[in-house]
């Protein structure tokens, strides 16, 4: 198990290296290079030359990569001239809010989807299952921005129950729970429909399996059968799904954050993309890559924890 984690982390380092090379490559593929991106098309040749030397851009690419990687390892991801702040400090400011948003929405999604999916699997093809399936299909097929707009209309414009945007540039995110409510709901609903569909089919498979028949033959009541003999078995396949969804949720929050003016990484990325603020964009890409790797690892570990047959080697 420990050997497995070490090896997976080793693989993660390799993945990170490749991603960093790609990211670095993109950086230098920009038309006109980094300097033009920062100074704009109308900069004087002298200014271009000065900045080139200052940034070390006249050195060989390999050396430049080495310097960039060394800095990145130390947490120095460059400097945003647009926001006049280091990328690291920007991420440090935006990422926690994002983790809160994504984490809470994922937790809610799982907490709702698992019981729902098990119930639907247990009641498969009965009217209540069909009704729930239809509702879930709507949530699943509706784009998240549409859901978000609907939520704003219902909870803010019609009933004025919840605020539609975070005010004061996110200062109240940690203190006012109501600010989180709508973005969390918008992110969560799509995942609920996605996860619950999975749990439902895993439950149906499990209910038809021999060991559940054995449990019923022992005299287990439905509640016990579901809790002891179906739940854990159905979860093991779902946990993989959740782990793999993590990066999507992180990047999927982009539109939602823009809509709710929620000051998370999505919004940071959105603004940076509009401003052609490349160091920030690249920093976000790196963070999402790390999240992908970590999500995968967590999924595998969770799977092994739930299913004793899986031995991680």
């Amino acid at each position: 198990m420990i050997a497995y984690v070490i090896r997976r982390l080793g693989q993660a380092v390799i993945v990170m290296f490749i991603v960093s090379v790609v990211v670095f490559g993109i950086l230098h593929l920009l038309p006109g290079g980094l300097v033009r991106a920062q100074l704009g098309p109308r900069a004087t040749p002298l200014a271009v030359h000065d900045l080139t030397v200052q940034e070390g851009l006249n050195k060989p690419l390999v050396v430049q990569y080495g310097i960039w990687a060394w800095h990145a390892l130390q947490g120095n991801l460059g400097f945003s001239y647009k926001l006049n702040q280091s990328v690291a400090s920007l991420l440090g400011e935006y990422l926690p809010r994002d983790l809160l948003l994504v984490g809470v929405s994922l937790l809610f999604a799982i907490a709702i989807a698992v019981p729902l999916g098990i119930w639907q699997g247990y009641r498969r093809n009965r009217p209540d299952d069909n009704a729930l399936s239809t509702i879930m299909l709507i949530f699943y097929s509706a784009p998240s921005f549409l859901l978000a707009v609907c939520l704003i209309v219902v909870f803010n414009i019609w009933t004025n129950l919840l605020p539609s945007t975070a005010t004061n540039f996110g200062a109240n995110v940690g203190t006012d729970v109501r600010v989180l409510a709508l973005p969390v709901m918008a992110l969560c609903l799509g995942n609920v429909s996605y996860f619950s569909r999975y749990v439902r089919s895993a439950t149906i498979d499990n209910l038809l399996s021999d060991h559940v028949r054995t449990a019923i033959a022992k005299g287990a009541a439905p509640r016990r059968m579901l809790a002891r003999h179906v739940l854990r078995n159905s979860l093991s396949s779902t946990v993989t799904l959740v782990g793999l969804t993590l990066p999507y949720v992180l990047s999927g929050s982009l539109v939602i954050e823009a809509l709710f003016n929620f000051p998370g990484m999505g919004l940071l990325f959105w603004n940076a993309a509009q401003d052609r603020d490349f160091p920030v964009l690249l920093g976000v890409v790196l963070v999402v890559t790390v999240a992908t790797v970590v999500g995968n690892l967590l999924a595998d570990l969770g799977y092994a924890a739930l299913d004793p047959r899986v031995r991680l080697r």
Partner: protein
Amino acid sequence: MSQDVMTDPGKRPVLQVQNLRTEFRLRSSTVVAVDDVSLTVHEGECLGLVGESGCGKSTTGLSIMRLLPRIGHITGGKVLLGERDLTTLSEAEMRKVRGNDVAMIFQDPMTSLNPTSTIGVQVAEPLRIHFGTHRKAAAKRALEMLDLVGVPNPRERMDDYPHQLSGGLRQRVMIAMALTAQPKLLIADEPTTALDVTIQAQILDLLDRLREELSMAVLLITHDMGVIAGRTDRVMVMYAAKAVESTSTAELFEDTRHPYAKALLESVPQLTASSSTLLPTIPGQPPDLTNLTGGCRFAPRCRHAKPDCGTAEPTLEELEAGHLVACFHPVGSEPEPAADAPELAAPAPEPVADEAADEPAAELPTVVQRVQAVLGITLEPRPAEPPPAGPPAAAEPVGAQAAADPMSAPVLVEIERLFKEYPVRRGLGLGFGPPAASVKAVSGISLTIRRGETFGLAGESGCGKTTLGRIVAGHEHPTAGTVRIDGKEILRLHGAELRRGRRQQQLMFQDPYASLNPRMRVGAIIREPLMVQGSGNRRQQWERVAELLGEIGLSRRAMDLYPHEFSGGQRQRIGLARALALNPGLIVADEPVSALDVSIQSQILNLMKRLQRDHGLTYMVVSHDLSVLRYLSDTIGVMYLGKLVEYGPADDVYDAPAHPYTHGLIQTIPVPDPKIERTKEKAAVRGELPSPVHPPSGCRFRTRCPLAQELCAQQEPPMQVFGPGHVAACHFPLQPPTTLEPPPGVQLAMTDPRGDA
């Protein structure tokens, strides 16, 4: 022996099923899966319920437990447990019965235990459910139960998960679990079908012992007449949802009255059967339960059928005290029909049946498949298997060339010092470096197979026999050693040469459901090898396909159908046709009939024999079923944990085995004769197969051998000769060795070329 326990006043009936009727309601039709079945099981008694797939025996068991799938409904009759009628109980009341008064064990111990929960918890669960026993007290009782059913080191096993145990141990755990709450009745649904014969004998002995100790009633559901003969007090034979014969076990085997029961008994390959005759078969298929035409359900397949059999349905009637038969013309009551004799002498070729293609059964497969899927059983009614005009002969010599003088035919396959090891990764396992350990699947096997003969390879699962078969077929590369076919070393071939070489040897698979691509038409499946090998043009290829279909007894129109439109037996025929397409010299058949019912199995075995005779084929048949091997084989090899322990002419090996393992294997096969079964030594092979990662030193069988001594642990026994062409590797053989020459290709001193033995 033919005492009638039904009227025995000393025993109280535990279970009385009266006129039970169970239906499966499908979207477009209703299948009556159990039709008017009545049975009684007394205290301490074992009632056997026997029949082929889809006859309703398992559904009867599930109906008693009310464990039917959603589409199943009990629509008539009573299930009396003592005074209570289980069919009228509410679901909550029924839950108190399940696992408490009545317990059930299922066929597949691999899937019937919860993989995510420990053994201890699962065995204790019935107590927790029914008596609310405290966790610790329940665990203590579970420990006692594990000890009772003979799980070694039960204390350590308590915290194991099911996947850490072997199949035999898991079935013991299932039994422990079923008996924890001390039920009055145990329903055992094919409890040993998924297990090796050696383990089967142990499990059945255990069930016998526990039945006696706990004076429980047992309903034993099985397809195996041998198990019935040895373990039951009374038997009920079912066919197409109906009970056709019911009597005491001794009476059934002595005086079989129903033609189906009789035919079923006859079509089981016997250990004593000569391999030079064809097996008697039951022609055709069981009827389609969605579409019954009235009259006796067995009549279309019955040798004794008269016109009145087709008009009215016979009911169970008491012919003698306690012997019930549902037949208008029971066997023995009338002179044998004259039609019997010509049937037996008729030549084997089966006519090409056009009925098979006439009704592709548009609705039936889906219906049947659904029932199969939910029940986990196989119903066979499909497009009818060709009903042979003259059923195959039972007295005709086959395999003539081989039988003439098997010892002088030229050698086709030479296997020399073959090793196959699969590395097991350990530690950081970065995918390189020497493996920490390996599974020793094949450890230094040398033998030869002669042209035109059938070589049977026997052994328990995990002994390496399938691996050896796959290497010979060229589908796996050995770690060391050579395989020559027709003098050519097949393992040296590469690329185009290898592909051409594969024409010579073809595989026939065990599972007729998984081995045919469900999205390809049958014609395309059979044509594929011809296309791959570029043999002939398009027209010639299709002609060849039609010819092959004729050979296996299917109509040309089968070409346009998909595999799911055929029954298991027909699919196995298609698999055989595909293997035959390229005119191979050698067919490696891995468990060719073990997925099939007895009556269908004998059809396939006869077909294999006929094709061998017509085409001069050489077979290498890998099987755990020694009766099937006895019937098919000229030469037998017995493998144990990667080693060849005995090899020789089939008759010699069966009649006078030299190796204690061979003797044990033969002893444990259930024989359909109560007199033999009752007097047999219990479980002739003890314990379970040791790990092939760390095989025992010296003789690998020594840990389970009743004759083992110190020498066996120190030295690997050399091959010794026990008769013409008959060798075995044992320090203490069951007969004295001779000084005859060994058969060609068999080394007496078995030395490992890499010296790690």
